[in-house]
C-alpha cells in the first residue's frame, strides 16, 4: 500500500494519504503535498523546525498542519522532506519537520500549492487509516 496517492481533480489536486496510525497519515499527507512542490529527494535535511498547531478536531488539525507547512514554505522559503509527529491528540499536534531553504540553483519548484482545503475532508479508519484531501493549486 502506497503512503500517498495523487488523485485527479479537475481544477485542483487531491491526495489520499494512508498509514498504520493517524500520525502516519499526517506525515504522508505532508509528504504527498511537498512532492507536488518539489522532488523530495532533492531536499537536504539541513534545518529543522518545531511545529505546534491546534484545532477543534483531528480533521481540522490535519488541514491546519498542512497549511502551517505551506506558510513556512511561502513566508520563510523553507521546503521539507521529513516529518515527525511527537504528539498527536484530538485538538493538538506537535511535530518536527526537516528540510532546507529553497536554493534556486538546486531546486526545481514544480507547483504552487495555495492551500489545503476543508472540502469533504475525512479521516477514515479502514485497513489502517486514510485521509482524502483536496489542495487548491
Amino acid at each position, binding site marked *: 500500500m502506497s503512503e500517498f496517492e*495523487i488523485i485527479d481533480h479537475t*481544477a*485542483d489536486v487531491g491526495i489520499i494519504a494512508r498509514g498504520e496510525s493517524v500520525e502516519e497519515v499526517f506525515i504522508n499527507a505532508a509528504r504527498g503535498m511537498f512532492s507536488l512542490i518539489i522532488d523530495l529527494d532533492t531536499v537536504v535535511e539541513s534545518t529543522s523546525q518545531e511545529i505546534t498547531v491546534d484545532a*477543534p478536531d483531528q480533521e481540522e488539525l490535519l488541514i491546519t498542519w498542512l497549511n502551517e507547512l505551506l506558510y513556512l514554505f511561502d*513566508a520563510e522559503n523553507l521546503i521539507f522532506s521529513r516529518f515527525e509527529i511527537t504528539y498527536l491528540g484530538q485538538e493538538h499536534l506537535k511535530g518536527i519537520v526537516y528540510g532546507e531553504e529553497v536554493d534556486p540553483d538546486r531546486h526545481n519548484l514544480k507547483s*504552487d500549492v495555495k492551500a489545503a482545503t*476543508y472540502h469533504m475532508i475525512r479521516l477514515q479508519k479502514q485497513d489502517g487509516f486514510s485521509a482524502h484531501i483536496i489542495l487548491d493549486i
Partner: protein
Amino acid sequence: MPSYWRDFLEQIDDYRWMINTDYKQGMRVPGLLYADANMLDQIGEEHSPEQVANVAFLPGIVGKSMAMPDIHWGYGFPIGGVAATRVTDGVVSPGGVGFDINCGVRLLVTNLTEKDVKPRIEGIIYQLFVNIPSGVGSKGRITLKGNQINKVLRNGARWAVEEGYGEKEDLEFAEENGCLKQADPDQVSEKAKKRGVPQLGTLGSGNHFLEIQVVDEIYDHLAAKAFGIEQTGQVLLLIHTGSRGLGYQVCDDYLKTMGKAVRDYGIEIPDRQLACAPVKSPEGQAYLAAMNCAANYAWANRQCITHWTRQTFSNVFGQSARELGLRLVYDVAHNIAKIEDHELDGKKVSLCVHRKGATRAFPAGHPEIPAAYQNIGQPVLVPGDMGRYSYLAVGTEKAMEETFGSTCHGAGRVLSRSAAKRELSAADIADELYRKGVTFKVASKSSLVEEASQAYKDVAEVINVAERAGISRKVLKARPIGVIKG
C-alpha cells in the same frame, strides 16, 4: 459520481437548467446551471452540480444558487459559482470567494498593431519575463518597510499609483476604482502580511499569465470604440493574477474562524469548506474587512505589473507609454464577495454577492461603471487558454435581473493537471504554440503542459452560452501572440 441529480433537473430553455430543492434536503433555493446540452454532459461527470446544491444551503441565500457556463468542480463552491445572501440575515462564506481573493484580470489597449509588435516579440517577451517576477515562490522587486503593507491593504491600486506605479486615470478604469473602502488591516493576521510583503508585484504561477494579444474579430464596433479599440490587428495586453500568499492566508485564517462560527451560531452546512457566519456578526464583519484588504492587495499587484509592462514596451519601442497608447480598458475581480444593492421582488435590497470564478457584469447606466462606459456597459474580461483566444464582453440588464449582475470568467478546465501531464508532452505543446505564432516564456515546463489548450474548454462555447442566455454580450475576440507564465 452519482448522476441522479439529473432526475431533479428541470430544463428551462436551451441554456438554463434548474436543480430543484427536493434534490437535497436543506437546500433553501433551487440551483441554476447556465449550460448547453453538450456542456451539461461534461458537467455531469464531476461533482460540480452537487456543489451548486450545497451552496443553496447557505442561510439567507436569495434567488438561486447559480453556476456560470464555465462551471467546474471546485472545493466548497463550484468554480463559476454565484450566490447572493441578504445582508440583514444572511451569511458570508470565505469558501465562496476562495483562497486567491480578487484573482482577476486587467486589459490594456495599445495603439500598436500586430505588424509593429511581431518583429520584436521575442525581445518583448524576454524583457517582460525579466521585469515581472513570475513562477513558484517568486519574490517581488518592491521593498515595503515597517507598516507600509497596511497602506497597500487600505488603499489598493491607489497606493501603487501614489508610489509612481501608474497613472491616476488608471484608477477610474478598475472595478471599485481598485480599492474597496471597508478594509481594515488590523483584521489581517501578521502571517498573512508576512507572506504578502515580499510577493507584491509578482505574477505567481498556475493559470496566472500576462498575454500580448491581437484583436481578431470585432462583434460590437460601438462598444469596442468606447474601449479604445478601433480595428482588428490592434494589440492588447491581458494580465491575470491575484492576491498571492496574502490572500491564501486570509482565507485560511477565516475558514478557521468560520468553522467555529458555524458551531456557535448553529448553522448547518453540508461541507466544511462552506463555513460561514452572519454578514452582520463580528466574524462576518472581520472577514469582510480582511477580504477587502486582500482584494486591495491584488489591485495594487496588478497595478505594479501594469507599470512594468508599460516600462517594457516603452524601452522596446523607444516611446513613452502614453505615446504608445497603453491605456487601461478595465480591471475585474473574479473571486470576491461584494455588498451590492439589487432589486429583489420589486424592492431594493442589500446583498452579499459571492462570485467564485465569476465576473461582475453590470449593464449600461449602472452608477458603478466608469463615466466613459455609461452608454455601453461594464467591460467583462474572459480569458481563454494560451493557445486559443480570449473575449471582451459587456454586462447586460438581463444579468442584473437574473444573476445579480454576473457572468462567466474564463474557459474552465476539462483535464486535471495530472491528466494533462499524462496525456500531453511539453515538446508537442511548444511546437503547437510555435505553429500558432505564439511566443512564450514559462518559468516551468509543468505549467506549460498543465495550461495547454487541451486542458481547457473552448472559451468560445462558454461565452456563447453566456451571450445566448443574455447575461453578457460579446464585443471582440483576441488571440495571443505572446505569453509569459509562472
